[in-house]
């Protein structure tokens, strides 16, 4: 029943998309300067029916309708209600439907919110966006249909992977999808701009909001994923330079570059070609990331059951996209002259772009090199985290200096009046760094430079905040908050990295482990029955000899029933100044339990500063509306 409704809705949406493409191309030829009412109506219907098809799937999951293969494979009657809903996008087919939803919704919103712009440009955007939508609809129908039915109808489902049954991971995919799929609209707009010749300032204005929206959501999505990895995967780290994490970083670097160079295009009407290239590459990189993750080519800790046939389809689609983008780009390419003064804001924004491109290239090489080597020579390698750390971290130092100074420069050309202030702040940063160095122990030259640069950026941002409050200018605040967030993030990651304590050992119940200032008592084991899992809870007493503080930590080993899986839940005690992190695991029912203990300073501040980066973006979105 649901299966038929779902498939009918999806087919209806495909027909509507084709109709939109057709009416839009007819509308292009008329001389009227307004877009015909029909297109609005069709788009509205398209959006409604797409949303309905997604709701149909959600209903299938809520009612545990196992006549749908997708529900049978990814849900279970005993699952909590919240995770039944989250299960809708916790699998390949369902998430593809979500993907299409976002494509359609953005297409509709772009149509209705850009009244003031050129008709041809809007129609071409609509046509290209709907071509993208059609491509994904075919993929959904032919290869990954969430509405496929199964007969005889099973009585019980297989259940959702327990590691995905987590609040952070329930909201992580929708956030990332709004971020990554949202880029599609300015991919289409960029192509439309090339075709219709509607470029320059006005083009920048038309896509500005959309770039910001997707930037905010990408940033937030990556942070939430990182938080999830921290407390669910039991390593106590938050970034592993894992191929899947890297795949999410690629579009983020490109979109950050785009967001900055878009300002130049809007204010100075230059860099148009570069903006177009970035618009195209953001979405291409998003799809590339999806391809790498879904096809199972990357050997990652995040890899879920994957299917090569999906990979081939996405690869085909991807090459078509790149190919057509390139053709249109070179056919319509117009030469432009850029005259930049070295001491102007646009030069600094370009510098940002160079850094982003450098990071992008580094990470891309890190991802692709193992794949090429495997294909060419059949040698299997992976690229270790030190590669990314060595290449990227030193470059963060000059980046942070530029992030502080750049926005102080005016457009076109300006004088150095601010050198004096910069010198004072650098001295301040060096002094603070010396304090940290002196009181908390020595570290390497590189770390020193990083701390100085980060503190400089932080101090500079604070002085900017004070200044803008005095002058009562609000529009600079979002930028300052994001840049401050970045400075704080680097600073706290640095501190965290330098002063973390990590200890691995095996303990039996009743035993005591002593190290540094800590004493860990493994007091007892308890068991607990829950709705969909049984838990073995370890009771640990942690005594800190430095301040004689006693704390109880209760890590769990959970045995989920559907599907039968073990997960380890870390016990995390978060305080303002540090996190205590303890995980317990057990191998082949031996008496010994593996314990991983970590003391991580300023962990919560890493999250707060990362969230500040995203917050800056959101504030800007709200401020613009007023």
């Amino acid at each position, binding site marked *: 029943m649901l299966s038929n409704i779902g498939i009918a809705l999806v087919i209806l949406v495909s027909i509507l998309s084709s109709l939109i493409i057709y009416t839009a191309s007819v509308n292009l030829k008329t001389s009227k300067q307004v877009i015909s009412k029909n297109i609005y109506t069709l788009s509205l219907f398209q959006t409604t029916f797409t949303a309905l098809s997604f709701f149909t799937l959600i209903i299938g999951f809520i009612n545990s309708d196992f006549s749908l293969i997708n529900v049978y494979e990814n849900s279970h009657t005993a699952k909590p209600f919240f995770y039944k809903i989250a299960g809708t996008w916790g699998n390949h087919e369902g998430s593809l439907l979500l993907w299409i939803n976002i494509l359609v919704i953005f297409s509709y919103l772009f149509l209705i919110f850009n009244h003031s712009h050129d008709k041809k440009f809007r129609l071409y955007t609509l046509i290209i966006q709907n071509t993208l939508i059609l491509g994904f609809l075919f993929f959904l129908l032919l290869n990954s249909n969430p509405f496929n039915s199964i007969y005889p109808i099973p009585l019980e489902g297989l259940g959702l*992977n327990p*590691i995905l049954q987590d609040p952070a991971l329930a909201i992580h995919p929708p956030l990332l999808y709004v971020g990554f799929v949202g880029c599609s609209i300015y991919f289409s707009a960029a192509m439309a701009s090339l075709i219709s010749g509607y470029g320059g300032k006005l083009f920048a204005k038309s896509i500005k909001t959309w770039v910001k929206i997707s930037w905010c959501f990408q940033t937030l999505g990556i942070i939430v994923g990182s938080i999830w990895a921290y407390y669910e*995967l*039991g390593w106590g780290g938050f970034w592993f330079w894992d191929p899947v994490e890297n795949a999410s970083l690629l579009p983020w670097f490109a979109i950050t570059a785009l967001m900055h160079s878009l300002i130049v295009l809007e204010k100075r009407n230059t860099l148009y070609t570069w903006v177009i290239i970035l618009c195209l590459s953001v979405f291409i990189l998003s799809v590339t990331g999806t391809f790498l993750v879904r096809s*199972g080519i990357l*050997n990652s*800790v*995040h*890899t*879920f*059951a*994957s299917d090569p046939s999906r990979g081939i389809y996405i690869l085909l689609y991807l090459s078509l996209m790149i190919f057509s983008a390139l053709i249109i780009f070179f056919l319509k390419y117009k030469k432009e002259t850029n005259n930049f003064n070295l001491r102007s804001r646009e030069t600094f924004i370009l510098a940002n772009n160079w850094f982003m491109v*450098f990071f992008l*290239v*580094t990470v891309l*090489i*890190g991802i692709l*090199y193992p794949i090429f080597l495997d294909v060419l020579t059949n*040698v*299997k*390698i*992976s*690229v*270790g985290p*030190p*590669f990314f750390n*060595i*290449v990227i971290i030193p470059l963060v130092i000059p980046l942070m200096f530029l992030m502080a100074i750049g926005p102080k420069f005016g457009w076109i050309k300006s004088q150095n009046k601010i050198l004096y202030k910069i010198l004072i702040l650098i001295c301040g940063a060096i002094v603070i760094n010396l304090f940290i160095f002196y009181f908390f122990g020595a570290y390497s030259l590189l770390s020193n430079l990083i701390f100085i640069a980060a503190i400089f950026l932080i101090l500079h941002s604070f002085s900017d905040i004070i200044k803008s409050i005095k002058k009562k200018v609000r529009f600079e605040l979002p930028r300052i908050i994001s840049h401050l967030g970045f400075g704080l993030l680097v600073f706290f990651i640095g501190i965290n990295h330098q002063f973390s304590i990590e200890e*691995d*050992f*095996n*303990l039996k119940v009743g035993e005591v482990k002593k190290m540094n200032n800590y004493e860990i008592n493994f007091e007892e084991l308890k068991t607990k029955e829950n709705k969909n899992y049984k838990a073995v809870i370890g009771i640990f007493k942690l005594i800190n000899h430095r301040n004689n503080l006693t704390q109880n930590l209760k890590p769990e080993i959970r045995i989920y029933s559907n*599907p039968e*899986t*073990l*997960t*380890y839940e870390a016990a995390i005690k978060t305080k303002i100044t540090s996190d205590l992190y303890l*995980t*317990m*695991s057990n*191998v*082949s029912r*031996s008496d*010994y339990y*593996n*314990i*991983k203990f970590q003391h991580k300073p300023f962990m919560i501040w890493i999250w707060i500063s990362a969230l500040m980066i995203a917050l800056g973006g959101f504030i800007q979105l709200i401020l613009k509306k007023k």
Partner: protein
Amino acid sequence: MLTKKVKNRTLFLFFIFGLSVVIVFFIIKSLNKNIIYFSSPTEIKQREDIPFGKAMRVGGMVKKDSISINQKEIQFIVTDFENEIIVSYSGTVPNLFAEEKGVVAEGKLSDKNFFIADRILAKHDENYMPPEIKEIIEKNVK
């Protein structure tokens, strides 16, 4: 004679070109330093030039009844059904680590029969098999 503008631009282009060459060289160099090769126990036995003390990955199946645990470490045998290697590891193991299941260990070789791991790779999905191990099994188990 070239005009000043053209000269400047050529200089600038050369500068950019030189810079990118240096950067790419720098990236490739550190890439080569940090490559982690994957080997099966058989490859370790057979290869003459296997590097000791360099980070690498070993993969295969955890042999039945081979896991032993004491206060400091876990020891187990990784097999590809032709050759075996002893792996010693201290730290938490991922939840899908078990006897007769696929495993990938990252660490250093201390000799041809002994591997000291500092990371055991976790897989989220119980049906998932790392592609490297799948290949080994397909080759050796018929």
